[in-house]
């Protein structure tokens, strides 16, 4: 039986950058325990001699020709931005004062 605590979910939410409510933290800790119990069965058959598959196609290093092609203009690229300034995405402060 998996046991995911409220604090475990709070830590995951912090990593995933979602400011979950107290209700959601409690609810998700119960749900996650149930779901993890259901999916943990993959371990029953995942023996060491089975190679993992990350992708259905046997592709490696797909290269393309390095050439100039038409692309979005700055105003098109910025058209969906919540805020912009001088042809750039305007974002909230990323570094603290002391950094």
């Amino acid at each position, binding site marked *: 039986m998996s046991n995911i605590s409220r604090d475990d979910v709070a830590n995951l939410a912090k990593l995933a950058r979602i400011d979950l409510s107290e209700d959601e933290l409690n609810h998700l800790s119960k749900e996650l325990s149930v779901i993890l119990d259901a999916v943990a069965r993959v371990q029953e058959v995942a023996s060491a001699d089975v190679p993992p598959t990350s992708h259905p196609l046997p592709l490696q290093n797909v290269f393309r020709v390095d050439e100039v092609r038409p692309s979005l203009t700055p105003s098109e690229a910025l058209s969906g931005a919540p*805020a912009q300034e001088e042809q750039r995405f305007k974002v909230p402060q990323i570094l603290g004062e002391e950094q």
Partner: protein
Amino acid sequence: MIKNSAVEMAKALSSNEISSVELTQAHLDQISKVDTDVHAFLHVDSEGALAQARDVDARRKAGEKLAPLAGVPLALKDVLVQKGIPTTCGSKMLEGWRPPYDSTVVSRLKDNGIIILGKTNMDEFAMGSSTENSAYGPTHNPWDLARIPGGSGGGSSAALAAFEAPLAIGTDTGGSIRQPAAVTGTVGVKPTYGGVSRYGLVAFSSSLDQAGPCARTVLDAAYLHEAIGGYDRMDSTSINAPIPPVVEAAKNGNVKGMTIGVIKELQGDGYQPGVLKLFNQSLELLASLGAEIVEVSCKYFDYALAAYYLIAPSECSSNLARFDAMRYGIRVGEGSAEEVMSATRQQGFGREVKRRIILGTYALSSGYYDAYYGSAQKVRTLISRDFEAAFAKADVLVSPTAPTTAFKIGEKANDPIAMYLNDIATIPTNLAGIGGMSIPSGLAEEDGLPAGFQIMAPAMKDDRMYQVGSALEAALLSKWGKPILDNAPSLGAR
């Protein structure tokens, strides 16, 4: 005319019996009439559709040689970007966003002169099996408005069943084209992974996502498949090979001498008896047409659902990191970038999306990675091996598409595991990257609702699904005497 197949509409257009403007307007009228009840569309682009139709009519009049489906209208799932047209993915996160470019699927639709009527409803970011997870409210099944139209592409399947469009585009990560087709009495195809470009498809689980055609007949789906499929340099996972000859296969529709493998693990417990009965009747029909029916065992399929619900959430937790409130989408709150990001994602994402992001974050976190994500990737190998062994014995594999007919809206909303079980028969093909098709198998005796028959083929042998699908479709049509959708209640009478 709106009840005809797309191929019939195309024929009427090319013989000038009807113009594309008239045909498009007829579908816009049907949308006005029934979509208040069905809610298949999130956005209807009447002006753009009519402008496109006028252009096709003018080109036809000028004697230009047009593509087979030129002038025929289509409904587009709201997960594919279309320049200047709102694209929400059923999420508040993208409310009001208008993409600055066309996805490859949209470019090809436009190149083929196919008229895009608007964007269809879906579970938020394609996560769900009922369309109940849309932030803009559920879509209702035209067969019974109190029931789900399947998901995530419930808007596209409902639009077809309600005659709001003869063609639609869906995307299928674990069954999101095929299960909606099954529960609405329509046709849905998930092509081989890499068969249709993912450029401009908002990513959920990149190693599983695949766009594909939705229609009311197998031949219509085949023409749409050829219109959107094929290599695209903008998608590095696009297969650089010719599109399998799906139209030819759909026209051929002969199963004599083919071997059809019934997957033992995809029937029995958990499947509605009426759904299984229809499945078995379809098998008998195929046998009577000269196909050899054999049973195959894919013993690792029992682990497919568990592997999927680790792989898809893991990839989603990574893919959806792009919704960071910085470059597009909504922005909520003030303070540091991290605070704004966390507040925006809390407000912008719905319950199921948050659940999967948190689950994926857990499965990928250090200390748990090998036990969960790593093990799931190994199961993926075992499932591909099961398929290889089964395809050594059979040309195609078959199963019911979904274990049940459409359930009631709200019935499974609070039980994620029960909801996930909808996809038990469709998920293995996504994990292996092969093709899958669902066609209607009839109406279940318990509830009179449609069920689906699933056909799976090896990678890049998509034509085999169309061959078997059209043979079965023709046999069922002659048995029923009329198309399955003729049994659906008429809408908008109030």
